[in-house]
């Protein structure tokens, strides 16, 4: 099972004062102001223990992360994180802003490769296969590990085109002019795929009659479910969600939460959230990241929320800081 690489965070006060990058890796934020010196003291006194991040479960891990370090230039955004993510479950990543949870998430399908300043060190295995090695097919990786972003980002195309975009580009659907002329048109398969994906994302009833309308005309919550449907259409095994409901109102949020729970029956869902109640409601296991890009505790969601080992995690969950 897993083992933390850097178990000890030899932290001093200087570490907590150094600016760290926000989730998108661009905005430096001040983790703790001088007003919260007491909690900062409490936070830095404690040493992280290896057993806190050991989480035992049955079966092989879907994703196994070992000693993952990420640097944005001089900034050490993620410090030796190791964790195993079980299959067909919801794993929640929680923690204050700038603690590296989004960075961690983006490492799982190598979206951090798109940030030039990011330097990634360590190992991530998908079904026992290392994704950080040469000759890894990013197209295949991202087909298997899909992603949903914080802000809904549908393409300025029709709802149907949004869903069919991925499969068309991967050549799974042939709908071009040549295919149509040769009679090898996959229009029926496309219709079936669009319907299946939209139904899975619980949005079919709302958009059934207007599949050819522009997706930007949908409401924010509908757009986010459309983005989930678009991700499902590619046929992923793992779905990464980066605060998928933080830009939505409570009703849309609850729809997304229900959807996540349904999806966990067939998919491995990893979800970053700021909302601790949300993590408690939807996740099977929870990982807590704290300031400095350090994974402090990872266990069953009930265990984390009811009886955490770490004092810092308890303080964070009960709202004493963060």
């Amino acid at each position, binding site marked *: 099972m897993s083992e933390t690489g850097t178990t000890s965070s030899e932290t001093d006060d200087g570490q907590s004062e150094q600016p760290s990058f926000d989730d998108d890796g661009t905005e430096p934020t001040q983790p703790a102001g001088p007003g919260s010196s007491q909690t900062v003291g409490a936070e830095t006194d404690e040493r992280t223990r290896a057993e806190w991040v050991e989480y035992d479960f049955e079966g092989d891990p879907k994703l196994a992360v070992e000693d993952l370090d990420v640097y944005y230039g001089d900034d050490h955004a993620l410090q030796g994180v190791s964790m195993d993510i079980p299959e067909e479950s919801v794993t929640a990543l929680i923690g204050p802003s700038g603690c590296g949870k989004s960075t961690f998430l983006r490492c799982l*399908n190598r*979206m951090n490769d*798109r940030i030039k300043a990011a330097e990634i060190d360590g190992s991530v295995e998908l079904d026992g296969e290392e994704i950080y090695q040469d000759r890894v097919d*990013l*197209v*295949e*990786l*991202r*087909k298997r590990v*899909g*992603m949903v*972003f914080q*802000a809904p*980002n*549908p*393409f*300025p195309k029709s709802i149907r085109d949004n869903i069919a*975009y*991925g499969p068309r*580009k*991967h050549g799974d659907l042939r709908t071009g002019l040549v295919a149509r002329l040769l009679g090898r048109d996959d229009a029926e398969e496309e219709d079936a795929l669009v319907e299946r994906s939209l139904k899975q994302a619980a949005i079919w009833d709302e958009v059934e009659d207007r599949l050819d*309308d*522009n997706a*930007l005309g949908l409401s924010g919550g509908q757009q986010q479910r459309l*983005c989930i449907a*678009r*991700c499902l259409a*590619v046929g992923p095994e793992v779905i990464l969600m980066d605060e998928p409901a933080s830009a939505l109102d409570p009703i849309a949020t609850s729809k997304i939460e229900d959807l996540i729970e349904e999806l966990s029956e067939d998919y491995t869902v990893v979800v970053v959230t700021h909302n601790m109640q949300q993590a408690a409601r939807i996740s099977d296991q929870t990982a807590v990241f704290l300031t400095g890009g350090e994974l402090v505790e990872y266990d069953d969601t009930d265990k984390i929320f009811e009886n955490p080992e770490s004092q810092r995690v308890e303080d964070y969950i009960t709202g004493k800081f963060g």
Partner: protein
Amino acid sequence: MSLGTETTDTDRTESDRGDGLVGGDSSGRELAGGLLVAASAAALLGGFLTLLMFVPVSTTVMGVRVGTFLGGMLALAGAGTMAVGVASVVGAPADRPRHSGGLVDAAVFGLAWFVAGGLLAAYPLGLGTLWPAVALVTGIGATALALLAREDVGVTLPGGALVLLSGGLVATGVVGPGWTWSPSSFSATVTPTTAVPVILIVVGLLAGWITARIYGGFGAKGRQAGAYLLVGATAAGMLAFLGLLVSFIVVRGFGPMTDGIEFGLFWGPVTWFHLPVLDEWLIIEGPIVWFYWPFVMEGYGLTTPANGIYPAIVGTVWLVAGAVTLAVPLGVGAAVFLTEYAEQGRFTFLVETATNGLWSTPSIVYGLFGLAFFVPRLGNTNSLLAGQLVLGFMLLPLVVITSRESLKSVPDEYRDASAALGVSKWETIKSVVLPAAMPGVITGVILGVGRIAGETAPILLVMVSEPFPTEAPTFVDGGFRFIGSAPFVAGPELDLVQSSSALPYQLYAVITAGLQENIEFAWATALVLLLVVMSFYAIGIASRIYFRRKLTA
């Protein structure tokens, strides 16, 4: 304490305080300000009308000399402004004046009085070389007044005095019939025909600004009203100038352009073909619309029934089409490389700077390059192809610049979303980024086409051979047809290496040939050029609407 008393209390406090939420009675001030604005606007409008000679200054309308009337309006505005200023000192203070006019007022009035003082000293008072001293004294005086006095006084007194003085000079005829001024350092003689409109426009704008501030009651509201008037006047002036330009060309060119148009409907042979079996010709007759527009359907020559510019129209259309075909793929490709692939840094900065420089390069330089480089390599003759290449390279920088801007404005979320679905970079660019950037690219092409369609210099050097072509060259000969030998199919022959004319050059040729007998031909050519450019715009705007609609609906 009951609710009723509370309300009364509040009411009383508000009406008692001068700067309460509900201001005091301002109808009198607004009426005075409105009348003064109207007087200034009349002077300003009159200034434009006299400048354009619609109503010359020296004429008399209904017994009043135009100059006297407009100058009187200005003087009225000035006097009224000063009266408001005096009134606010004496006992009826304005709403919410600031304690000082501020830097802008100081600069405007200082400069205005510097100029006015200098002019007065130099000409009517005849102080000769003393004028800089007088100018400085008046300028500093006005600046000091605007800076040190409360706003309502500091604005109205120096401003009103200047307006009154200028209006008075015009109204009393001091600057009027018989007045001339020949400054020694200026080779032209200033006459009332130009001096009076210039005074009316400049001082009228100043008066409008001041009186609008009176109307708004000084302070923030006054400045808002003043700025509103200035911005409105600028916009109106610009639109009026555009309208004037277009209507000028249309009015002068429409008659000669449409001269001799004939059309009608008659019965005639619509089509005919040879029946092989019967060995006879079958002729099908039907109604035919007959339309003849000599100016745009004929060339220029002795044998044609009328002189026209058909060859030049054909040349311009071919020229623009060729240049766009060359520049758009190259430019968009370069922009995609620079924005999506190249690492942003010194290299892209250098390319960007060079591109901007190329866009500002004078067209005659491009023309000379084309003459020295393309013409010897393309049959050593002036040709349409050389013109298309030169104008295509002229258009290229603008296409690169605008395409880059619109590619940069495509949100990164689209690229992220596509990458997260495992779609490769090129597929993303092709299916998401470029469609989203398309409206911006087309806007750039529209702007560029407007410039190259009107270029004369490069065409003159690389494309034309005769100034007044009789017939348009045949660039495409024949269509697709079957022939008797292998490969049994023949396509149209495209021959672009022929000299051709184009509309701007045609206009230039008419002008250099002497305008006396050709003036109507020139205006008609200008109008046709305007219409051709407009129709290119129409195509561009229609395609922009099409692409934008694809993104939003």
